[in-house]
């Protein structure tokens, strides 16, 4: 079997300009999609030295949050239908959010409807607590995830 890249030539999009939030000391500082997006946009793709934002895997619109119920839903779009990296990307997102938000937030991670060939099973795998825990026990996988999260390549 040849060990080629799964998506050898992805389309790279421009990074959106980061707008500094206006300082408003008395404003409502509830968790909003932009805040979550700011945490995850710079996660590196497992295959390429580009961020998830640049590959258009994520966007601000694909994130919804309900602070009262403590729920976060992220829908991401793998670059190609058969992307076996979709689960790794999902795992990265989950680890990152676990670091950035208190434990009482429930995080749901899904691939966008119709964007993946094996949508159902990927979704199931990503939201299965035990499989996630098991995956993070795997040293190889753990290293891959850490590389994506803390990479300086971008």
């Amino acid at each position, binding site marked *: 079997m040849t060990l080629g890249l799964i998506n050898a030539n992805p389309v790279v999009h421009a990074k959106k300009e980061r707008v500094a939030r206006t300082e408003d000391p008395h404003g409502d*500082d509830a968790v909003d999609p932009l805040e979550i997006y700011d945490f995850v946009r710079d996660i590196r793709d497992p295959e390429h030295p580009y961020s998830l934002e640049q590959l258009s895997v994520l966007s601000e619109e694909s994130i919804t949050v309900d602070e009262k119920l403590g729920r976060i839903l992220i829908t991401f779009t793998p670059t190609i239908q058969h992307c076996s990296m979709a689960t790794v990307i999902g795992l990265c997102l989950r680890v990152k959010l676990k*670091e*950035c938000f208190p434990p*009482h937030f429930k995080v749901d991670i899904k691939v966008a409807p119709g964007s993946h060939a094996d949508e159902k099973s990927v979704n199931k795998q990503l939201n299965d607590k035990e499989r996630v825990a098991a995956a993070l026990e795997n040293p190889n996988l753990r290293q891959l995830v*850490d590389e994506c999260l803390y990479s300086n390549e971008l």
Partner: protein
Amino acid sequence: MAETSQLIQHIESFVDSSHSPGQQAASLEAIASLLKNDQLTIETLVREMEGYLTTTDNIIRARGILLLGEVLVHLASKPLDDAPIHSLIGFFMDRLADWRALRGALVGCLALMRRKSSGGMVSGNDAKAVAESYLQNLQVQSLGQYERKLCFELLESLLERYPNAVASLGDNLIYGICEAVDGEKDPHCLMLTFHIIEVLSRLFPDPCGPLASFAHDLFEILGCYFPIHFTHPKVEDANVKRDDLAKALMLAFSSTPLFEPFAIPLLLEKLSSSLPSAKVDSLRYLSDCTVKYGVDRMAKHGEAIWSSLKDAVFTSVDSVLSFNPESLEGLDLPENEIAAEALSLLQKLIVQNTKMFLDLIVGDEDIKMIFNMISSYETYHEIPPQSKQRLHAVGRILSTSAKASTLSCNRVFECFFSQLMNILGLSVRNSSGHPSSDEGILISKRCNHGALYLSIELLSACRDLVASSETIPAASAHTEETWKYLLQNFSPSLTMAFCSAFICTSEDTHNADMYFGVKGLLILATFPGGYFLIPKTVFERILVTFVSIVNVDYSNTLLWKLALKALVQIGLFIERYHESEKELSYLGIVVERIVSLASVDDFSMPFTLRVEALLEIGTSGQSYMLKVVQGLEGTIYANLSKVHGSTNSAEIVTQLLKCYSNKVIPWICCAKGLEDVLLHFAINIWNQIENSMVFHATQTKERGVLDVMMKAMKLAVASCSVEKQNIIVQKSYSILSSSTSFPLKELFLQEGFQIAQVVDDSSIRDEWILSLFAAVIIAVHPRTHIPNIRPMLYLFMITLLKGNVAAAQALGSMVNKLGSGGQTSSDCTLEEAMDIILNSSLWIFHNDRSPDIQAKMTVVHDISCTSLQIHAIVGLAWIGKGLLMRGHEKVKDMTMIFLQCLQPSGVADISHQEKSVSENSYELDLHHSVMKSAADAFQILMGDSELCLNRDFHAVIRPLYKQRFFSTMMPLLQSLVMKSEPLSRPFLFRASAHIIMDTPLIVVLSDTKKIIPMLLDGLSALSNDILDKDVIYGLLLVLSGILMDKNGQKAVSDSAHTIVNCLIDLIQYPHMMLVRETAIQCLVAVSGLSHARIYPMRMQVLRAIIKALDDPKRAVRQEAVRCRQAWASIASRSLHS
């Protein structure tokens, strides 16, 4: 003999290659100094060295010759006879053939060649011989880099110093040089080769001379370096930059017109390249060559150059105009390097050959097309971006051509101006400039924007032309110049067109309309030369138009700003060119009307805009500012008398005074020589106060008036000289003593409480006057004379007990400056003043009589004992600050009083007397507020105040006074904390926190180990009370400053555990977001301490930080994520770093 053996030793040590370079250099120095001091002659040296110079051992011979060469370098300024020079140059010249020992020969030749004529030079014949030997023997390109460099330097000095000698070599020389420089790659050597070619070309200027036949070959060698592409990564070559190389090559290119047939085609070819740097270089080289090659040679390339140049401008000019008010004067297009170079080239070409290039421009199809295009689009916004770019390019080209010379200006106006006027639908009016009957009617249809834009470019170009020419046209004899004739005829109708641009379009007004309109009018108004080009009627009409916009159209922000900016520009222009006729119109129309804005009671126009307009106009010239200031002052005085009646007047006075102190006073201080204005201002305010008898300063609004008035008074007084301050002080003192009820003369004869009674009877007006007088005292210079200091002291002391802080500040300023200004006739020394203050029975804390007096005072003042104490403490704090800043030792007495108050026993002395007066349950609270104000006294002592006692108000400041106070107070406070009772502890911490916060960080850092426990205890002791939140924040900032510093980190490493515990508590601090954020940032900084120290705390911190992830504030959450990351990665550094 000893000398000879020593010499041999030196020579030996230089020649021996086993010695270190340092030793070799030392022996070289030694030999050179022997020669310099005439202890040794050149002849002896050569004779001694004979063996080394002639040996067959290549290495020793090379070293020997090098030694001789280097010695000659050292002797550059020592006079030598011709004979030794002749034989030495003969020797070195000979040695050029010896390739194994070449370096020494080159060094020697070069040293001799570079000798100054005063100390004996190489003769012309010898130089020629050197050149011949050089050409015959040296294969430059086969040598190493350093030798090549020496070769080129030798060649350079031959060419520069002996031009006639080497010129006679003719073809041979040129051929040799071609051979030597061909293929050179080192940047240092290239700098030299470019220069050699430049000098060579100067040597053979004859177009039919020897250079002519070699020009092609020589240029082939040169041409391949263009454009310079140079990205040398090595640091050692950093002293040669790309620009230096490009400049040197340019000079070589343009050195002789003989290069013209080869250079111009090459440059034009590279101009079409897509590399921006190549384009810029090509254009620069073309400019240089144009000037140096001359008209005839450039003429044949005219068309080719024009078409490439046009392309360059068309593609590089920006397609977006900015319509900001800032771009009114100056460029409205962003600066583009290519376009700028291209236009400067065009200007040079036109200056050189006006007729040819203007023919090209006039006949150009692209330009014609643009002219056709603009008439098909009405508004600027309809024009597609690409056409906009071309339009701007044409604008720039036409403007550059018009700017080039009067002749070209005429031609451009002739061909294009009338065309534009046709498109705009304007016809020639009568040239007398009188408005004809139909001029009153505005042009009803929208003007063509493209044509407007181009006419503006043309007008501004010829304005610049007039401005730059020495002789401003004054006589009508010049009217035969076409552009002036056209301009004179069209200016009235153009004015109408520009006016109509922003007036007649009603519903779909664009920014472009307003911008073009204002800019056009501005340019017309700023033509130099009096009313010769632009008639008076037109000029005044323009001013009236702008003024009416400023008066009426304030709702249209952009237009308003543009018009105001334009007026300012016109004002500046009049100042710059001393246009006295126009100044009259400007004063009459603009300044008067704008100044009247200040006083008009019509409130339709927002007040802030009025003030802005006033100040903007004022800044355009000194005479205008004086008028504006007059207007402002007039309005202030007029409203001042009405303050008590209408809140509106109070509002106006507040605004105007603020504007006066923030804008006008700084401007006057910068302008120099306008001090009188400030003096009059201060005196007039005093006059106003004296004349108006009614003041009700109780209402908050009017209280505000007093505050801003005090500020303005302080600033005005502070900016005056000592003599003028004396006048103001005299004036204010006389008003204080004559028109108030204070019995100044007999004040100090009475007992404290009796005076207090008098003071208490004073009216609110008296209080105004006293506060204002305090403001004057605060701002004066130490040398300024203050009359009757003793009664003053009493008066201020009594009023401060009533809570008048200004009086306390004035007292502080007085003790700060007293006696330090070198004044001898002062009626009261500092020591006397301090005695009065400290022994005064007003101070309730420290003498035995206090309870008695206090009781009386309480009755008299009808205020509670606590607030009396608090006022006294505040007053003492300001006086203490004055003493502290000048470094007076009496400040100790003051701080002892504060420290006494901080200890329960100290206050208890007072309070047990109080029990009869107040109820017991009330007592604890009383203590608290008094103790708190005693703690805050340290803030007053250490903090920098904007209100008084600073550099602006001429305070006497001893260097490092904060540092000194810090190091005396901290040990004291530390020991007090040790033995303090729980009640007073927080206040002691608060006091020490104030001292720590206001001490420069660098001082705290040097004492970190001792301060840290105090600081941490303070943080935990004060974290319960919401009132202490600012103190907590200040302390945290100090802590984070320590943690960020390298030495600080070392010092706190031992107490890392306590610091972490303290910070973890503050993560949850409920009263202030900044405290939580800073605490987390400090934790991040702690994670950088040594691994062994912090690892045990890791889990504790991570647990605590999870709570912060849920913080209601986003900034805190983000810091928490960062902090978590930092601490989590301690365990697995390999992964995350």
